[in-house]
């Protein structure tokens, strides 16, 4: 008897010690994970912030579209962050404030008055003028680690009214009283389940739920349940209710977005309502809390009715428990679910642009930094232009639908601002919302006639030899290449056009005259020009290169045309502006860099010829859709048999390059003017850019010439047209068209001659 008791005592003591040891061990785990960095947060990628200032070209509808995407609430008075009131041409908004690289934007009331598509006035709440204001930038994506957990961390003081009350009322009524586990809650659950005859209510406290998600696996067993309870008690021992609640709010799983797991109320608020958590209203709070029980089952996008019932049940419960009045609950129940549409601007995914951003970031950061440190990446992405580009492309595909081979046609599109070198929109596929082969960056295709501006620029840099009105011959010829093959170029229409002006060769994209000109200049010289324009590929100096046998990606073509559009200044195209740490500290900037590569005069002349391409040449069909006041410059490009359809062109503030073709390089149903040009025109029509207006460089004079002869003429002569020349290369002024030669023009001629 005695030895037995002794053994029992000994065993009991051992058990106690083992239990204590286990508790110490659990305690260490609990503290270790809770005191360190609790979560890794993926880098967040933001669009450009929409700037507001007087004189800005901005359509009211575009502003409202962006504000909808940012989750602004339409109200009668904009009396708090995230609210907007619209009346006629006035938009009164209360911005939310944001930390940018160079400065913090304060949340403030901003009154915008529109006049046409311009901002006519910008004032503060007190009516005083406001110089400039920014909306917060739209979140366009994140860089997720392998397990793809995403969250927007929130603090307890950022949560909206009713969130904590609702959560406690629904999930754990005794949260503020219990010590981690709630015997009362278990008893109630047992009672409810027993009387209902089915499993209706769990007895887990919020603390236990947190422990389960935070430390344990999903396994269902008694030991796990005991461990969970022990850890919950330990957690409560070390941390106060507020900390536990805050952790819970950030940890709880609330939905699955494809590969991405939506964790925490902060992200869920953005994901379902496109609004910051702090702005949510009672019914929105009720919906999110209701989803805790079954994020997939109650997903408001997939199962709206189920979600609505759950939400209303919770609102009833709140009224029952006296958290809200019955009237408040009834009013909230009358409101719709209010979740944003997937695929709208707010919930859009822009895989092509994000791909670009990731590639740049991977050059500069380690993967862990991008996926764990919550970096904030500020980009130049313009969601308004992106949607317009997507619409234009969709329209083009729709128009071509049904033609032979049109289903296999793919597309890539790049939109930049030539004056800043920033990439504003990017499309990598005919289905721009699906990630995949990013043709804007990776499709390397023969550029065809897009190379021609490089040939003409090479010529125009030699003003003593070539002007826009130099006569060149558009005639058949053949040359023997280095490989012994005879090269015999042909025009698109298979005709020769005889003696033409130099600019006409470009405007009409004649192959014969252009190839001949290129051979005169020397293929290596043309390739050198191409390199100065920003093309870094090494091509052999074969004559066929002169007609675009070389292949480039849409992005490379954009870089090349960027130099032409920006007055001869080359700039590396940028998609990222700056990077901040999770705390808002500046980390890195991607500054604007330029380098002058060409004389402004030669570029001015080239732009003039490219404007003529649009007015009278291969691009003239654009003016059936665009106003003639919109000066544009551009170039069509078609490779052999229309396998590649290109268009590259620009206004003052927009450069757009479109490629269309098939991945398998098969034939397509269009020509240079019906494929890419159509999409380009559709985009420009929607974007409504500023007309091209390059200042006349010092070394350029504009002379009157006879359109028929290219000789100098007087302004009042029939057929006289204005043509720019590098100073000194202009034709001698005409002596007038009638008998009376204006004296001053003779004087000018003498002066010109003396100079």
């Amino acid at each position, binding site marked *: 008897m005695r030895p037995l008791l002794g053994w029992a005592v*000994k065993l009991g*003591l*051992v058990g106690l*010690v*083992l239990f*204590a*040891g286990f508790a*110490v*061990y659990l*305690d*260490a785990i609990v*503290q*270790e994970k809770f*005191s*360190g*960095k609790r979560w*890794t947060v993926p880098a967040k990628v933001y669009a450009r912030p929409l*700037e507001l*200032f*007087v*004189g*800005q070209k901005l359509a009211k509808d575009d502003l409202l579209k962006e504000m909808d995407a940012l989750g602004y609430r339409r109200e009668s008075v904009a009396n708090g962050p995230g609210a907007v009131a619209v009346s006629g041409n006035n938009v009164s908004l209360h911005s939310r404030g944001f930390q940018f690289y*160079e*400065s913090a934007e304060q949340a403030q009331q901003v009154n915008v008055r529109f006049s046409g598509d*311009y901002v*006519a006035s910008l004032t503060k709440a007190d009516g005083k003028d406001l110089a*400039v204001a920014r909306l917060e930038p739209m979140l366009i994506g994140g860089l997720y680690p392998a397990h793809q957990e995403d969250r927007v961390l929130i603090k307890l003081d950022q949560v909206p009214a009713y969130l904590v009350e609702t959560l406690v009322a629904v999930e754990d009524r005794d949260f503020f009283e219990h010590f981690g586990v709630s015997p009362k809650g278990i008893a109630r659950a047992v009672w409810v389940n027993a009387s209902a005859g089915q499993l209706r209510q769990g007895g887990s406290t919020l603390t236990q739920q947190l422990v389960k998600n935070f430390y344990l696996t999903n396994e269902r067993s008694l030991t796990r349940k005991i461990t969970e309870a022990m850890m919950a008690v330990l957690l409560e021992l070390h941390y106060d209710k507020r900390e536990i609640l805050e952790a819970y709010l950030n940890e709880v799983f609330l939905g699955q977005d494809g590969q991405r797991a939506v964790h925490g109320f902060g992200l869920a608020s953005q994901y379902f309502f496109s609004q910051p958590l702090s702005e949510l209203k009672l019914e929105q709070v009720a919906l999110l809390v209701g989803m805790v029980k079954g994020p997939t089952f109650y997903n408001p996008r997939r199962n709206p009715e189920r979600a609505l019932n759950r939400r209303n049940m919770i609102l009833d419960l709140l009224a029952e428990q006296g958290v809200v009045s019955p009237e408040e609950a009834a009013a909230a129940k009358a409101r719709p679910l209010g979740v944003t549409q997937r695929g709208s601007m707010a919930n859009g995914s822009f895989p092509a642009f994000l791909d670009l951003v990731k590639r740049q970031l991977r050059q*500069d*950061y*380690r993967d*862990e*930094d991008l996926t764990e*440190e919550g*970096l904030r990446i500020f980009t130049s992405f313009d969601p308004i232009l992106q949607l317009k580009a997507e619409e234009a492309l969709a329209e083009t595909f729709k128009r071509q639908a049904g033609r032979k081979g049109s289903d296999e046609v793919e597309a890539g599109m790049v939109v930049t*601002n030539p004056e*800043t070198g*920033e990439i504003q929109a990017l499309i990598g596929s005919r289905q721009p919302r699906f990630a995949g082969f990013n043709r804007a960056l990776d499709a390397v295709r023969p550029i065809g006639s897009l190379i021609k501006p490089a040939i003409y620029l090479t010529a125009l840099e030699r003003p003593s030899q070539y002007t826009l009105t130099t006569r060149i011959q558009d005639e058949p010829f053949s040359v023997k290449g280095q490989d012994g093959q005879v090269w015999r170029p042909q025009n698109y229409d298979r005709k020769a056009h005889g003696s033409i002006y130099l600019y006409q060769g470009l405007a009409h994209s004649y192959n014969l005259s252009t190839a001949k000109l290129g051979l005169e200049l020397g293929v290596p010289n043309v390739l050198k020009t191409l390199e100065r324009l920003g093309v870094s590929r090494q091509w052999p100096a074969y004559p066929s290169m002169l007609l675009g046998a070389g292949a480039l990606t849409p992005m490379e073509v954009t870089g090349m045309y960027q130099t032409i559009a920006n*007055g001869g*200044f080359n700039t*590396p195209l940028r998609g990222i*502006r700056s990077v901040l*740490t*999770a705390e808002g500290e*500046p*980390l*890195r*900037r991607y*500054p*604007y*860099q*330029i*380098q*002058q590569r060409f004389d402004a005069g030669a570029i001015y002349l080239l732009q003039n010829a490219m404007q003529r391409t649009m007015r009278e040449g291969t691009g003239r069909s654009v003016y059936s859709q665009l106003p003639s006041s919109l000066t544009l410059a551009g170039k069509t490009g078609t490779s052999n048999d229309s396998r590649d359809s290109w268009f590259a062109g620009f206004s*003052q*503030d927009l450069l757009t390059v479109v490629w269309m073709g098939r991945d398998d390089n098969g034939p397509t149903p269009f020509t240079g003017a019906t494929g890419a040009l159509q999409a380009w025109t559709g985009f420009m029509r929607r974007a409504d850019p*500023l*007309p091209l207006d390059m*200042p*006349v*460089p010092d070394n350029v004079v504009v002379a009157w010439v006879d359109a028929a002869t290219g000789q100098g003429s007087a302004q009042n002569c029939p057929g006289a047209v204005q043509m720019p020349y590098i100073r000194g290369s202009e034709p001698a002024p005409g002596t007038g068209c009638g008998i009376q030669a204006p004296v001053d023009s003779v004087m000018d001629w003498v002066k010109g001659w003396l100079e």
Partner: protein
Amino acid sequence: MNKWLIPVLTASVVLGGCASVPRGSIPVVDSGSSAYEQDDRPGGGYNNAPAQAQQPQAMPEDSGVVVMVPGGGAPSAPIDTYAAPAGAPANGGGLTFDEPPLSSEPLGSPSYGNSAPSQPSTPSGIPSGNTGGGLAADEQLDGPVLALLTSAQQQQTGGDLNGAASSLERAQRIAPREPQVLYRLAEVRLAQGDAAQAEQFARRGLSYANGRPALQASLWDLIAKARQQQGDAAGAAQARERARVNL
């Protein structure tokens, strides 16, 4: 019994000790990646100038440029370190160069060529749409550009050159063809030790500065400094000559 206790206690202490090592709080800055240079100059690019330590901005001594910023304690005093040339109006109404009293002069005045009088609401962010005369409507900096140049100036004075450059790029996005913005960008680049980019921005500024001789002179002067810094004495002398001609 003690024999039983010792391993158990040891085990629990060891376990506890192992488990309580704080983890995961490695700050971003310690990751040792080159990404964390707070530098305006990524590798490659156009920086053929030898990298130089950032230094306090070397302000031009006595060129003709007066950058005046309203507000602050002394609204009429230029906040740049160099003085206004004699005769330059020291009005506090706008950020101007030392051309006629721009901020008080009606737009479209004869000295700016042929552009029709623009509506007062014509913004600086929009090309004036005129055909010859250049940037008459932009001559008076107002609204957003003035505000951003002012913050850039404050950031630069406070030693935050990256912030200043960032504010100036913001201004450049709003008014891409305003040579005064490009001039300031060039100044800040020079202060950051990137003389090559400083020269490029000044050259870009020149392409938009037709009909504004004082501004042209300042831009040439800046080019001279940038070339000097790049060790191109002959080019600097040439640029200085251009600056004189334009004045």
